[in-house]
């Protein structure tokens, strides 16, 4: 009974919560984007549906569902219809290893709830395992690798979608995005690598714990890596100023030009989910995950009253805001310039940063 509870029931509840929170977060990220962009551009953004437009994402979602799902006559129907899912499912899958809170996040809650159903000894058995108490779905020792590899599967969905549409603009968009995402992934990988040298672990939970032990967030040890990571993250998620694959003014809509209805919406969900992933990764790798500011300064202990989840969310929120802020400010790069920046600026910088980090760690 305890085993089933620990390894099946509680994790499933957590998966449900995580999926729900992420999907709701994605929906409201679109709302936040429209609101923030609106205020940057001296207008109000959505105001009509609900109080200050708060129900707008739901209305949008409903609209997408009832729209006609058009599959072009010459398109490869099967690939065309599953391509958005190939983009979206990996984007969501990544959250299985993202730690939202510390390993003992639910211990008190479980200690309070479980005695209604189980004996004291059984409760201790359940609480012992971080699978049950952790503020994450799973803590695996290759978490970082999983995030990087699974999230790059999403590119396939874009390429396939653009190709299967059998139309010129989507094809151009798909070619652009594949080239862009592949080249920026290289630089992104190297920046992540230079961070990993410090804690010497690939588990996302341990990375945060090491930051707690050393008492310093890695952004202060690896500022260059952080900036590179964030910029490459912008490119990875096709966000302005690297939003070439879907450059509206050039390619009409890029790879999703032919898509309509809910399949179109799924592409967007995937993009916004990726934004949250990148923000979450930046938070975990560089800004101490669920840790409060100055995690080892004792007199700031009152900050611990705020649960780790909230710190985590707040940090993610700041990054998401920066994503939107950048979109409201910068024009778009041209494709060749984008590749130049990727291969001639970011990659050498990331490599140099990695070498310097390694050298310092070797000497110290």
């Amino acid at each position, binding site marked *: 009974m305890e085993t089933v509870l620990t390894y099946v029931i509680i994790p499933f509840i957590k998966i449900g919560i995580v999926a729900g929170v992420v999907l709701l977060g994605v929906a409201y990220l679109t709302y936040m984007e429209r609101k923030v962009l609106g205020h940057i551009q001296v207008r109000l953004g959505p105001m009509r549906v609900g109080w200050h437009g708060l129900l707008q994402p739901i209305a949008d979602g409903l609209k997408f569902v009832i729209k006609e799902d058009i599959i072009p006559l010459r398109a490869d129907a099967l690939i065309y219809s599953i391509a958005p899912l190939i983009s979206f499912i990996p984007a969501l899958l990544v959250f299985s290893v993202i730690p939202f809170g510390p390993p003992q996040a639910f211990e008190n809650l479980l200690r309070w709830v479980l005695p209604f159903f189980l004996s004291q000894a059984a409760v201790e058995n359940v609480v012992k395992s971080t699978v049950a108490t952790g503020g994450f779905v799973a803590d695996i020792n290759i978490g970082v690798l999983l995030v990087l590899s699974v999230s790059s599967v999403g590119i396939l969905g874009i390429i396939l979608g653009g190709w299967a549409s059998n139309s010129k603009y989507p094809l151009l968009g798909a070619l652009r995005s594949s080239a862009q995402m592949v080249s920026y992934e290289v630089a992104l990988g190297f920046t992540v690598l230079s961070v990993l040298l410090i804690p010497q672990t690939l588990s996302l939970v341990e990375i945060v714990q090491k930051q707690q032990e050393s008492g310093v967030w890695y952004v202060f040890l690896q500022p260059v890596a952080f900036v590179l990571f964030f910029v490459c993250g912008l490119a990875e998620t096709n966000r302005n100023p690297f939003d070439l694959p879907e450059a509206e*003014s050039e390619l009409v809509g890029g790879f999703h030009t032919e898509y309509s209805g809910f399949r179109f919406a799924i592409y967007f969900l995937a993009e916004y989910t990726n934004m949250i992933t990148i923000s979450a990764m930046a938070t975990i790798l560089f800004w101490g995950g669920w840790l409060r500011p100055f995690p080892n300064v004792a007199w700031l202990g009152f900050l611990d009253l705020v649960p780790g989840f909230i710190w985590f969310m707040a940090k993610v929120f700041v990054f998401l805001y920066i994503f939107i802020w950048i979109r409201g400010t910068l024009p778009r790069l041209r494709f060749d310039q984008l590749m130049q920046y990727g291969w001639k600026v970011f990659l050498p910088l990331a490599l140099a940063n990695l070498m310097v980090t390694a050298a310092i760690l070797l000497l110290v």
Partner: protein
Amino acid sequence: MDERTILDAHELEINLGPQHPATHGVLQVKLKLDGERVLDAECVIGYLHRGVEKISENRNYVKCVPYYDRTDYIAAVSNVYGYILGVEKMMEIEVPERAQYIRIMMTEFNRIASHLLWLATHALDIGALTVFLYCFREREEILKLFEALFGARLTTHAFRMGGLWMDLPEGFVDEARKFIDDFPKKVDEYEQLLTNNRIWIDRTKGVGVISGEEAVDFGLSGGVLRGSGVNYDVRKQRPYGGYDRFDFDVPLGDNGDTYDRYLVRVEEMRQSRRIIQQVLDRLPDGPIRGKVPRVLKPPVGEYYSGIESPRGELGYYIVSDGSAVPFRVRIRPPTFINLQALRRLVKGLLVADVIAVIGTLDVVLGEIDR
């Protein structure tokens, strides 16, 4: 499709437009691409052709006027101004000074509004979302002024033969003054977002370069010509309607690229503001309409009236056979002539640059197709 590209692949032919968000209307450009590089570009125009010139041959001189509002609808005031100046020249109608001043003021307001729309869409094409809405915020103020004086915002039917339809409404001068006092700050705001922005410079510098000599050969005019460093502004070369009474500079570019054309047009907005300020300071009292015969029957002959519209030299070549109806009105549309440089400008560039170049040419399809 026989031509082979460097990589020995078939070239890709795509239609940019006529339904495309960045071609500023119903312009169709057939692009031949090698990957993303442009091998050739062919403009297909005429989707908005309404036969304005032919219609003019069947209306009397006064009834033609509203049709010219609808050629270059972004600069309706300038367009009507050019035609009315031509007819007034034919009829030798005296225009009172106050009317001349107000006409110049409104034309310059229109120039600012038109340049704002250009900057807004040009920036939007290159991906700067926010500039778009900032520009529209100011353009709205100008359109409100138009509404106050002309009763319409876009197709204004601005001027009448011999002067104006009505005098400035109450409070107009104050509103106009308020606008021009605030305006430099607003232009600074746009420049802050763009002028020194690394990405903006990357996207526009060295893109669509045309030398001054070549620009003259093409017959280009307006900001496109001055961006290449050729000092030609009809307001200075052949002052019309009283422009010689006002001080203003003609900004010139050096390299003839998209960035220079951007700088030139932004500076032109500041210069237009200077002209408006002088008009407001020296606005004389007096009648707003000269003596105009009931039926206009210009003497037999050919006349040309050229003005500097926001897009370049806008000419009206009017032939009169002595009747109340023009024998022929031929419009020299500046953007029609500027657009022919597109093919020359985009060869060898990338698709994204085509969008930037279409933007920098500042085309209005209503005027190109007439």
